[in-house]
């Protein structure tokens, strides 16, 4: 570390050098026995500590913040178009930290002035954040606010190409903007990548229908950490001997036998031996990493039977949609779930009750044609002490789990109509729950920024997934039940391994989601993950390669639910509060974007990923799920503008 005197001497030398007073400089050098620093050395010496030591008075002057930010903005606006997009990302974090610095230094009035002078640069992209920022005016408020503390304690991740990074640093040096230097050093993680890598990013971006602006992201990890997490190997394949394989085997065997029967006649004459049917299991099948009770043989057979009856959905074969519209339930029903065999419908209500209908009983009633026509009342069960935000039926079809505002999850039985157990663990409202595809385990996501893994027979959580910087809004089990995906309000999606509870993927992209994640879905083969956000944008991620392959952008409001079609997963259905169900062509989106770039004809076809839109009558879609036979179940709450005052 250099002492203060030396630093001053360096400054004087630089001053002399800049003003081309070389004679004086030489004598000064001789007298102080210091040598001139080269440019590179200077960058090295630019340490935060030195800076503060050097000119503390200057940093205290609020006007300095104004000037620094203004000059950075001007410089970016006048720089080459090629680099403008990359460099503009820097503005928002620097704006934030300038403002927070000013408040920390108790210059409240100046801070507000700063905010109002420069807020228009960011108002479009971050309306909610700026709204909150505007109201934070004292240091004490800053300390209590979640948003402020996370931005101060975590670093923004920004990708810059090597050239623009050099430009930025020489700019800082030339203009002597020590302040920006300090902020960059303290609050930003800048990752410099080569132009080759950047090109790869660009190819992915070019396939998007809408060119979005890049945004700085915050995940809490450095780039190196994210890279090492994302480059871990993931066994995303389905389990060995899984139902899907059995169904495929059954279908192939039938085809084979048909062929054999035709060939048999000719073979008799030639007297050749008949071939044996061999089913080749796909290579990527894995073992289960967590102990779990196995499915019973009956259950297994039932599923295989149901699945083999399914019709493949695809571009030319759009699915049928059965819509369950809920009436008298505006502002009352928060969540709906329909079981895969379409037997039960459960709803979670805002009056803290859960209700369900058994559809088979209703069918029986209709068949028997009783004269006294009573309306079909649902079974009502009470227990929660707050609004129920999500319900999920167990894949084994004998119970369902509900999560509520009171921070508990409850397991309810269809057979006894009673609460079976209560799971206490979260301290804040729980937003979402999802069952493992084999039952037994379930995962909850809460407002306390964590997700928890539970099993139905234990009162305590088995795993705690910590890492998100904001609420965990949605959770989803991977089809092989070894992983869990969580989506959060911090605009990132994470994938966690159940065996060790560690984060194995962070899906955060500068051009990905621009608002909180509201819904998640895995493709049935486990390769793709779809995530929907508050703006109605859906991103498709490749889990193995840990990159974004496609962005769907057509919904007007936030997405409530998504699901892939069973078996082949060629179709993604998404539902939103904008009263529509949309069907997307995943088969096309799955093709390698780089290949498509090469042939223009294919690219033209690539545009039509949206297969169809189905509007509903004033019914926001709350739940979407493909049944085992590939019929899409949708459900929503009929709404009207006329308020209903009656509480139930």
């Amino acid at each position: 570390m250099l002492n203060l005197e030396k630093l001053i001497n360096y400054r004087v030398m630089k001053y002399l050098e800049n003003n081309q007073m070389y004679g004086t400089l030489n004598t000064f050098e001789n007298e102080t026995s210091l040598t001139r620093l080269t440019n590179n050395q200077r960058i090295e010496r630019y340490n935060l500590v030195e800076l503060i030591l050097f000119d503390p008075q200057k940093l205290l002057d609020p006007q300095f913040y104004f000037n620094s930010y203004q000059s950075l903005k001007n410089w970016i606006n006048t720089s080459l178009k090629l680099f403008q997009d990359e460099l503009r990302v820097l503005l928002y974090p620097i704006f934030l930290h300038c403002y927070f610095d000013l408040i920390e230094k108790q210059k409240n009035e100046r801070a507000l002035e700063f905010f109002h002078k420069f807020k228009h640069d960011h108002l479009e992209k971050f309306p909610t954040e700026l709204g909150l920022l505007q109201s934070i005016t004292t240091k004490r408020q800053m300390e209590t606010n979640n948003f402020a503390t996370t931005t101060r304690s975590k670093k923004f991740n920004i990708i810059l190409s090597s050239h623009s990074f050099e430009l930025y640093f020489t700019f800082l040096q030339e203009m002597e903007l020590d302040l920006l230097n300090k902020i960059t050093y303290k609050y930003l993680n800048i990752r410099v990548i080569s132009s080759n890598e950047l090109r790869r990013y660009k190819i992915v971006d070019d396939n998007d229908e809408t060119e979005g602006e890049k945004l700085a992201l915050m995940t809490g990890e450095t780039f190196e950490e994210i890279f090492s997490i994302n480059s871990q190997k993931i066994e995303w394949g389905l389990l060995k001997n899984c139902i899907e394989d059995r169904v495929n085997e059954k279908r192939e065997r039938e085809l084979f036998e048909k062929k054999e029967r035709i060939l048999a006649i000719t073979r008799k004459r030639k007297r050749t031996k008949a071939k044996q049917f061999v089913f080749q299991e796909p290579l990527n099948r894995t073992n289960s990493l967590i102990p779990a009770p196995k499915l019973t043989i009956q259950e297994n057979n039932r599923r295989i039977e149901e699945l083999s009856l399914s019709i493949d959905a695809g571009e030319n074969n759009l699915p049928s949609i059965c819509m369950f519209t809920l009436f008298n339930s505006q502002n009352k029903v928060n969540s709906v779930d329909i079981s895969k065999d379409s037997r039960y419908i459960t709803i979670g209500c805002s009056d803290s009750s859960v209700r369900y209908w058994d559809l088979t009983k209703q069918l029986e009633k209709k068949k028997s044609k009783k004269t006294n026509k009573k309306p079909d009342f649902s079974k009502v069960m009470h227990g929660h002490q707050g609004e129920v935000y999500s319900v999920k039926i167990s894949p084994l079809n004998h119970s369902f789990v509900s999560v509520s505002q009171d921070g508990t999850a409850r397991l309810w039985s269809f057979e006894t109509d009673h609460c079976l157990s209560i799971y206490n663990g979260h301290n804040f409202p729980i937003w979402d729950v999802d069952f493992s595809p084999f039952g037994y385990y379930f995962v909850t996501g809460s407002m306390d920024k964590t997700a928890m893994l539970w099993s139905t027979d234990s009162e305590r959580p088995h795993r705690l997934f910590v890492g998100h910087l904001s609420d965990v809004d949605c959770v989803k089990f991977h089809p092989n039940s070894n992983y869990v995906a969580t989506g959060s309000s911090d605009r990132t999606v994470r994938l966690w391994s159940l065996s060790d509870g560690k984060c194995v993927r962070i899906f955060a992209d500068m051009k990905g989601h621009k608002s909180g994640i509201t819904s998640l879905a895995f493709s049935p083969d486990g390769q793709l993950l779809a995530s929907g956000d508050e703006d109605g944008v859906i991103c498709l991620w490749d889990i193995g390669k840990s990159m974004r392959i496609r962005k769907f952008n057509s919904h007007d409001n936030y997405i409530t639910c998504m699901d892939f079609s069973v078996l082949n997963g060629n179709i993604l259905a998404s539902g939103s509060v904008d009263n529509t169900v949309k069907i997307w062509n995943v088969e096309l989106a799955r093709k390698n974007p780089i290949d498509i770039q090469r042939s223009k004809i294919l690219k033209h076809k690539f545009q039509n990923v949206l297969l169809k839109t189905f509007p509903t009558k004033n019914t926001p879609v709350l739940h979407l799920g493909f049944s085992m036979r590939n019929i899409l179940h949708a459900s929503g709450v009929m709404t009207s503008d006329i308020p209903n005052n009656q509480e139930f």
Partner: protein
Amino acid sequence: MLSPSVIIEISKKKEKIGKIDQSVALLLSREIEFRIRELLLDSLSFMRHSKRKALIPRDICNALKLRTRRMINNLPQTIPVRKISKKLLKGIKDQEQKQENLINNNNNNNNNSNDPNDLQTTHKNQEKILNVKKLLRSSLPSYPIVPTFRSHWLAIAGTMPKIPENVIVYNDNLIDEQFYSVHQTNDFQDINSNNKEKKNIKSKNKRFRKNSIQPVIQMNKQGAVKRTIGTKIGSKGTTEIAVEITPIMKHNITQELQFYYDRVIDIIHGGNERQRYSVYNSLTEDTGIQQLAPYFIQHIQKEVKNNLKQLDVMMALMKMSQALIRNESVLLGLFLHQLVPSILTCILSSDLSSSQFDDHWKLRDFAAQTLSELCHKFDNYTSLKPRVINTLALSFVNKTKKLTTHYGAIVGLAALGLDVIRLILIPNAMNSLQILNPIIETEKKDTIKKIQAIKCRGMLLLAIGRVVMEQTEKRNSKRLITQKNDQNDDDDFVDVLKLYDMFGNALDCFIYSDSYHYTQVLI
């Protein structure tokens, strides 16, 4: 958001707090704003997880609960916040108004009245005081409505069935193809290269046609059916169905549709204006009433015959038929032979009202408009428009018909477009005026006849004026382009001088398209 002066005023009111300094008030207001914004963000996330689009007070209560603050209990829980705030604002404004009135009254007496802004800035919901005894004695509130559900098909193999539960989708290629597969097949091939799908649709089309034919057969005997099918299929080029005629079958409609039909007919004949209006709306927008179309048309035909002299019934029937024509999902192609005569009756009938002073002109005008809409919609039936024009033209030329019929013919022809006016009205205008002018000039006893004649002439003038106006505009624009002043360069143009001989200066307003003149003549 919140100005510091508000806080000072609040402190003024509540004497316990005492006086507050300006700077303290500023700090306080900022603190309050911060807290409220935080609260709002929280409540928005509660709203999102309840999967709603509108923020309701319950969300705010939840956010308050989260931060362990006291909840607000006396607000309605499920009304969107925006509506409540509007109400509150209105309440505040009312109070302000009262206050101002008070001040105005007081000003005359003493000048030391309160600051009028005092009440404008804060609002408090008054809490009601309830009497426990009364509450216990009062009857229980009604049982709350239990949530129920209903299922329907939103899509069957990718296409939306047209049932009342589903939304109408306009401009959807698939649906258009299903119903109007007349000359769009070529375009459709380009859009949808998928053969399988096309085959599907074709087979569906067949099914659909068969279904829609059935009711006609039941009501109309086979002769009529054969004819309509023949004309319709001819243009389509598929001969399969023209040969094959489905046997007479019983046409079943559901109980709901039956109820709907009964209700519509009741209101058309007996309801008030408002009910009728909603019926017209329903008829124009509902998707599931195709099955009822034959019954409606039959009803219109029957009632027009029976109620020839009841103006309001006739008007309602015409509005009903207009609504049916406007409905995109109802196919009237097979019932035109029943519908068009009824409309023509309303235009041409000599006596439409019991008293001659009634405003039957309005009905004729409206029916003519409906007719033009119908002709426009069924453009592809090439024989429809010529036949309609023929009927109207015959009664226009016939001198023995009554003047009311004459008027109807003029209105009907005028509504069918400029070309019709040019080809039929203008060549025969002289003959018509030869009858009308003597009546207007000489008739003194029969005022009704005189009025009728004036009406006829006015309508004729308006119709011809439209042509003249369009012509002058065209010529003006042409003159602008070519800088020439030729009068007779185009054969298509009507000889205006000849028309001047007929109508005199009344034509001026159409030639000099000055809005002032135009309105004067219309009045």
